[in-house]
């Protein structure tokens, strides 16, 4: 009888374990607070050009491939892919077991319709149409093989495809362009239930989800029953949302709120990093005295990025010394030693360039070409927002000992665009974010120095443009990174910009949330395996 009782208890125990785990992992509504400034214009990622739109789309629409948390492209709706040897086409081998939330099968025809929708002029896709590149045509040799043909090699396609939501063609044809954003239907783990503009977005679990995303680590649907994204307009409120229990997760909380979550029993602080240019100030190299490379070099020698980080961001940001931040896969570490903090060297360079002291606190021009003698060495530091302007205030202090009079101005986005287009600036804030090395091409290739382009410095260096063109043409990451590193060296030799720090994404996460997975980009996350502890 005793033996029987023990066996019975053991069996019961074994039966209880999976039931308990399953009960813990299933259900619940996850509330995520995000800054209101990140609200998509339209929820359709074929149209909108924002990372958050594509992120929110990814809950209801799996892409062809994903960028894994470790930074690799992994197959999702495509089982595999390759670029043709001549570089003029991409071939995708698709999964044959996928269907959309409305029952429409996923196949090459459905994928082609998605591509065609993005490229259609009436869609007026702001960015994704360009990300897909100069498409010359499509081929579908069989139901699950899809070929995209190009007029010229387009290696950057994968970076666009990891974000491109694949929608049900039945749904977007049924609802039309204007209404489809209210009926987004894809193959993802959650069904889009709608959005209240300026307030929130809602999702519900899709019970028939087939786990096609490689991040999905279990059989069956996602654990969460509901997901609600709430927009918060005030930073102070956002920073307190998790602490007050109004949200499980708060994305992009201000650096000043981080301390509250570091030694918090109920919540954790997560930090995500995003590859890109970091917070850089582009020099206007066409305007005196910044047209003198010695002056630009002197400013870099007189800049202490660690001090900026400590003074403004409590040391929570990443310091940066070059055109790409340290988390970028093509980051070149040679930048670290190029311009060490050295006031003597900075003073020496300014003297060489013809900027001398005449008894005042700031240096003045003496025999500088294109500058009237006696002109004070003054620059305007243009920043978007008060927080960025504080970097300028620290620089004012750092550059005063070398006789530079720095003025800080806070400008709005439209003014920034206007100033850049008129080349009416000294140091202009610019930040671009993507792990693709073509970000360098975008910001530094002189061919992108047109009204509306993103190359602002005025630098025109043939060898730099050549290296950047090769990044854009090449498909092998190692080779692209080699060109990117060469480009970084040239940019730093010619001092196209002032690097400062790189802003991470800070998340406050309630300890009741499990398996909230950050992507390799700090502002991307996965909810496939997330669950809330009751």
């Amino acid at each position, binding site marked *: 009888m005793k033996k029987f009782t023990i066996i019975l208890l053991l069996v019961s125990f074994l039966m209880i374990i999976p039931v308990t785990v399953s009960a813990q992992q299933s259900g619940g509504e996850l509330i995520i*607070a995000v800054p*209101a400034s990140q609200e998509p*214009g*339209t929820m*359709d990622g074929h*149209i909108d*050009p*924002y*990372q958050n739109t*594509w992120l929110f789309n990814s809950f209801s629409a799996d892409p062809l491939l994903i960028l894994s948390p470790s930074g690799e492209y992994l197959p999702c709706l495509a089982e595999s892919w390759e670029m043709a040897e001549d570089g003029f086409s991409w071939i995708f081998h698709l999964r044959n077991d996928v269907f959309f939330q409305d029952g429409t099968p996923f196949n090459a025809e459905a994928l082609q319709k998605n591509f065609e929708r993005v490229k259609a*002029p*009436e869609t*007026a896709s*702001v*960015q994704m*149409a*360009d990300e897909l590149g100069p498409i010359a045509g499509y081929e579908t040799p069989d139901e699950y093989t899809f070929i995209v043909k190009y007029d010229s090699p387009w290696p950057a396609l994968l*970076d666009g495809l990891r*974000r491109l939501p694949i929608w049900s063609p039945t749904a977007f044809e049924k609802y039309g*362009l*204007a209404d489809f*954003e209210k009926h987004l239907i894809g193959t993802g783990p959650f069904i889009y239930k709608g959005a*209240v*503009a*300026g*307030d*929130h977005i809602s999702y519900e679990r899709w019970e028939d989800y087939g786990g096609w995303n490689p991040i999905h680590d279990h059989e069956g649907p996602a654990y969460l029953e509901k997901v609600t994204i*709430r*927009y*918060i*307009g*005030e930073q*102070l*409120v956002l920073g*307190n*949302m998790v*602490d*007050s*229990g*109004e949200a499980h997760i708060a994305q992009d909380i201000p650096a000043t709120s981080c301390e509250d979550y570091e030694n918090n029993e109920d919540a954790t602080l997560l930090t995500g990093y995003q590859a*890109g240019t970091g917070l850089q100030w582009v020099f206007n190299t066409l305007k005196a005295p910044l047209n003198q490379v010695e002056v630009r070099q002197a400013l870099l020698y007189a800049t202490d990025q660690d001090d900026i980080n400590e003074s403004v961001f409590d040391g929570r940001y990443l310091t940066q010394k070059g055109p790409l931040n340290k988390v970028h896969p093509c980051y070149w570490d040679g930048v670290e030693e190029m311009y060490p903090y050295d006031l003597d060297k900075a003073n020496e360079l300014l003297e060489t360039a013809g900027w001398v002291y005449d008894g005042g606190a700031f240096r003045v021009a003496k025999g500088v070409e294109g500058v009237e003698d006696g002109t004070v060495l003054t620059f305007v530091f243009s920043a978007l927002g008060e927080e960025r302007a504080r970097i300028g205030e620290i620089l004012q202090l750092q550059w005063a000992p070398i006789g530079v009079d720095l003025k800080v101005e806070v400008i*709005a*986005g*439209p*003014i*920034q*665009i*206007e100033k850049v287009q008129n080349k009416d600036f000294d140091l202009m804030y610019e930040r*671009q*974010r*993507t792990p*693709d090395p*073509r*970000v360098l091409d*975008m910001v530094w290739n002189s061919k*992108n120095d*047109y009204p*509306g*382009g*993103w190359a602002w410095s005025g630098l025109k260096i043939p060898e730099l443009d050549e290296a950047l063109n090769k990044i854009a043409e090449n498909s092998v990451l190692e080779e692209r990174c080699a060109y990117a590193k060469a480009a970084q060296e040239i940019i730093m030799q010619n001092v196209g910009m002032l690097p400062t720090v790189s802003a991470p994404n800070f998340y406050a996460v309630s300890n009741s949330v499990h398996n909230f997975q950050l992507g390799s980009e700090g502002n991307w996350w996965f909810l496939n395996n997330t669950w809330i502890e009751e």
Partner: protein
Amino acid sequence: MRNYILKRLGQMIPVLILVSIIIFFVMRLLPGDPISLMLAGAEGGAISAERRAELAESMGLNDPLIVQYFDWITSALRGDLGESIRMRESVSKLIGEFFASTFELSLVGLFFSLSIGLSTGIIAALKKDSWFDFLSMGLAYVGISMPIFWLGLVLILAFSFEVKWFPSAGGEGLRSLVLPGLTLGLSSAGLISRLTRSSLIEILNEDYIRTARSKGLKEQAVVMGHAMKNAMIPVVTMVGLQFGGMMAGAVVTETVFSRPGLGKVLVNGVLWMDYPLVQGIILFLAVVYMSTNLLVDISYCFIDPRIRYS
């Protein structure tokens, strides 16, 4: 009265035309363009010059300004305010969606404003020079001069994060209206309180009030039945202006409390250079403001039967 209303409605037309011209051209005078601004916040926001030109064409940004204006105004006369560049949605539809939320908030704000402002104003007038008078009028000054965003944040810290009675953000449910409504209502409560007090004190010194009292009427009947009606005329004017102002200016409250609303969309529209959205909302708000004023003028007839419009 009918003729008066028709005449006032007719007077709105040139004002609206003027508003439409000013807002249309002022928006175009602002630096920047919608496509650059859209891409400035985008991830790796690079597009080719050709693509940019295509987008400008599809958004109707390449036509001469005068053509763009007449296209817009003729569509607006048909009730079509165009499509938001950023939100890709009909502007009329967006106004409908967001105005409901702003109107709701303004009503709650007005409720707090009237209930606090009228009651303190009346008591202060009746107890002139008492401690209540000094205290309430002092607080009224504080209410008027307090920055709305600061007051909102203080209320959130106290009632959302500390005692957790009301949500700090969002636009769903009655509880979400309490703190933003109070924030919006408190500053205008100060104005209404002061105006009610001074207006009532003045009326209470009138001969007809003295007559009413000498006839043996109870003080409550004198105040509520005789004095208040006349004291209310300047207060109603102020309430009308305040209500119009609340609807047009709820943006700070909407931002602090993360509520959807017309004011917030309008500010975003300006930052995004979303021409059709800004033009449509300004035009709509002009109509709302003028209509509110018309309603206020009409209400005078009901408050004081001696007032007649012809």
